[in-house]
């Protein structure tokens, strides 16, 4: 059995046999030199292929989104128009003409600054391949993959549309985007889809038994009996449960005894922010900017400023928390030349330490970009990563004030927060609140758990020790959160724990006011909150939880509480 954690693209549960699919790109088969003696016949053939391709596309319309097929058709006609000019002028073969036009547009789209437009490159590639396949009368193999889950490195929109017509049940790809046409169609057709970057087709058998959990982004190959039973249970009532739950997504989350909880979303790039803004997120609790720093050079102040402004606009009038880049350590940055290879990156130069060390190259440009965006968008808030000492906060605030004066931006109302992920600062929140500059604390429970249990969750030899519901973690959270809230600091949670239904009543008992969750979990978490009686939980269940020995015991206690409140468990826990 193997469990893959991936990116949830389209929610739902599938339990089925998978089929590996390796695509061969016909574009690679087109010869670089190819001319014809009679261009008119070639144009005639191309037009015939065009009509055939359009017919093929239209046959999938009944099963899926009409407008996407319409767009593809427009693109097909457009590319053929240009191809015809090339054929007439240079006597090119139709396939070569198509390939050249594809390459021209592909180049400009791929270099586009917006991810969204880079995804359109996939569309143009898909239709170019469809045309060439039709020209050489070659059928794609997709037609045989009926009623199965398709597992592949990547799939084109035209292939996916065809597979839907054939009754595909689910999709797992190694590459892809959450806003690609494949993703959009998967969601609108209720076909569970997870992107697993770590996927290696060579590791899998040809037809493995597979479970896809599109809500939590999990793919389980050859599941064991326990997992199988659990998912069969969930799958039975899934559609019904999910539609009940989706109603909660757009409502406010109130416990049965009237406690209001803010539910925000974590997003890792602009495309996620774009989708999240339509799903009931009450704001962004964590905007991870690292994607901007994973290029071959530092992002310009302008590029940063543009990204921040865009996100702020997607969520106008709602809070948007931007975390300063948490780079270094296990997320090395190639162009920071003086980076020495560290023996212990987890405890090395990263987070706010790295920012202060490279303040001129990294921190100041980031703050400048942030403040320029903040000038126009007062809903932006700033979050400092991996703080371990109070002095780091003081230094950072000083820089922010200094640059605020330089840029004439009034920062007196700017909400600044810190990530609580290092145990030292968790135990010093009273000192953090003393300066009055920090307004909120956001608990990064993933790293916090690793530091508390001294375990690297990515190390397969010890990852079984990692447990963010462990009693030790809960005890530190209790101390830290209760102190923070008592002293007027707003308590938020952005780690995975916030998306875990079992953790919700516990976190709320510790005075958490805001949970920042994965966008697919918005409805589930709000649904859970709305069925909890917080005072009852605090008085009757919490005391036993704090005297358990480990996470399994914690889970048993909370699960019975959930059962007693008839709260269905859909999140991973």
């Amino acid at each position, binding site marked *: 059995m193997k469990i893959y954690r991936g990116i949830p693209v389209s929610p739902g549960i599938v339990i089925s046999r998978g089929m590996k699919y390796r695509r061969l790109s016909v574009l690679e088969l087109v010869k670089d030199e190819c001319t014809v003696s009679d261009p008119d016949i070639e144009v005639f053939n191309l037009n015939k292929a065009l009509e055939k391709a359009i017919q093929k596309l239209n046959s999938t319309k009944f099963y899926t989104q009409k*407008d*996407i097929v319409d767009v593809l058709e427009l693109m097909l006609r457009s590319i053929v128009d*240009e191809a015809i000019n090339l054929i007439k002028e240079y006597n090119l073969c139709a396939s070569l003409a198509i390939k050249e036009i594809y390459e021209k547009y592909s180049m400009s789209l791929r270099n586009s600054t917006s991810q969204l*437009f880079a995804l359109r490159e996939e569309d143009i590639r898909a239709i170019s391949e469809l045309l060439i396949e039709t020209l050489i009368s070659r059928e794609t193999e997709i037609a045989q993959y009926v009623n199965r889950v398709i597992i592949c490195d990547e799939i084109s929109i035209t292939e996916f549309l065809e597979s839907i017509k054939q009754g595909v049940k689910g999709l797992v790809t190694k590459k892809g985007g959450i806003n690609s046409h494949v993703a959009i169609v998967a969601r609108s057709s209720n076909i569970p889809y997870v992107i697993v970057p770590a996927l290696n087709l060579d590791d899998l058998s040809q037809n493995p038994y597979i479970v896809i959990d599109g809500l939590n982004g999990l793919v389980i190959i050859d599941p064991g009996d326990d997992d199988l039973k659990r998912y069969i249970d969930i799958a039975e009532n899934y559609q019904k449960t999910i539609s009940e739950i989706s109603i909660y997504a757009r409502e406010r989350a109130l416990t049965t005894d009237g406690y209001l909880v803010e539910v925000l979303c974590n997003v890792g790039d602009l495309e996620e922010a774009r989708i999240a803004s*339509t799903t009931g997120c009450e704001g962004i609790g964590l905007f991870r900017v690292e994607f901007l720093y994973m290029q071959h050079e530092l992002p310009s102040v302008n590029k940063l400023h543009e990204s921040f402004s865009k996100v702020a606009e*997607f969520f106008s009038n709602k809070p948007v928390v931007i975390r300063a880049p948490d780079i270094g350590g296990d997320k090395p940055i190639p162009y920071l030349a003086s980076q020495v290879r560290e023996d212990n990156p987890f405890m090395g130069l990263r987070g706010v330490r790295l920012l202060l060390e490279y303040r001129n190259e990294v921190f100041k440009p980031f703050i400048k970009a942030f403040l320029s965006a903040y000038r126009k968008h007062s809903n932006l808030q700033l979050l400092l990563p991996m703080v371990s000492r109070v002095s780091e906060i003081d230094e950072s605030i000083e820089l922010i004030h200094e640059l605020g004066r330089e840029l004439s931006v009034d920062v007196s109302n700017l909400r600044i927060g810190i990530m609580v992920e290092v145990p030292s600062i968790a135990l010093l929140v009273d000192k953090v609140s003393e300066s009055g500059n920090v307004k909120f604390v956001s608990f990064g429970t993933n790293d916090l758990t690793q530091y508390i249990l001294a375990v690297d969750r990515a190390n397969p030899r010890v990852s079984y020790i990692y447990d963010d519901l462990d009693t030790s973690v809960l005890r530190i959270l209790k101390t830290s959160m209760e102190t923070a809230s008592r002293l007027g600091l707003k308590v938020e949670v952005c780690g995975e724990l916030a998306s875990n239904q079992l953790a919700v009543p516990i976190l709320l008992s510790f005075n958490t006011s805001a949970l920042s969750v994965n966008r697919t979990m918005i409805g589930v978490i709000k649904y859970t909150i709305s069925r909890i009686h917080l005072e009852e939980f605090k008085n009757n269940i919490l005391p036993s939880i704090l005297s358990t020995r480990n996470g399994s015991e914690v889970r048993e206690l909370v699960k019975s509480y959930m059962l007693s409140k008839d709260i269905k468990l859909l999140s991973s826990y």
Partner: protein
Amino acid sequence: MKTSTVRLFNRSGLHARPAARFVQTASMFRSRIEVCKSDRCVSAKNILQVLTLGVDFGDVILLKIDGEDEELAHDTLLNLLTKILPEEDK
């Protein structure tokens, strides 16, 4: 010749479906219609060219319309960009 500056407020800018609507609408008119972003101008009747222009949410574009039905084309396209597309994108 009519020119107009428009700021795009539909969530997905002028990508795929909104672009298709825009191009289909522009193609209904006889006038020559160009859409420009920064210094680049392309024909508004060609979907591939409009896509490579890369117009996203919040971007400002310039519409250049020249021909006998330029008034009607102008009003229709402006209405599409500023009212219809943002509504549909919700």
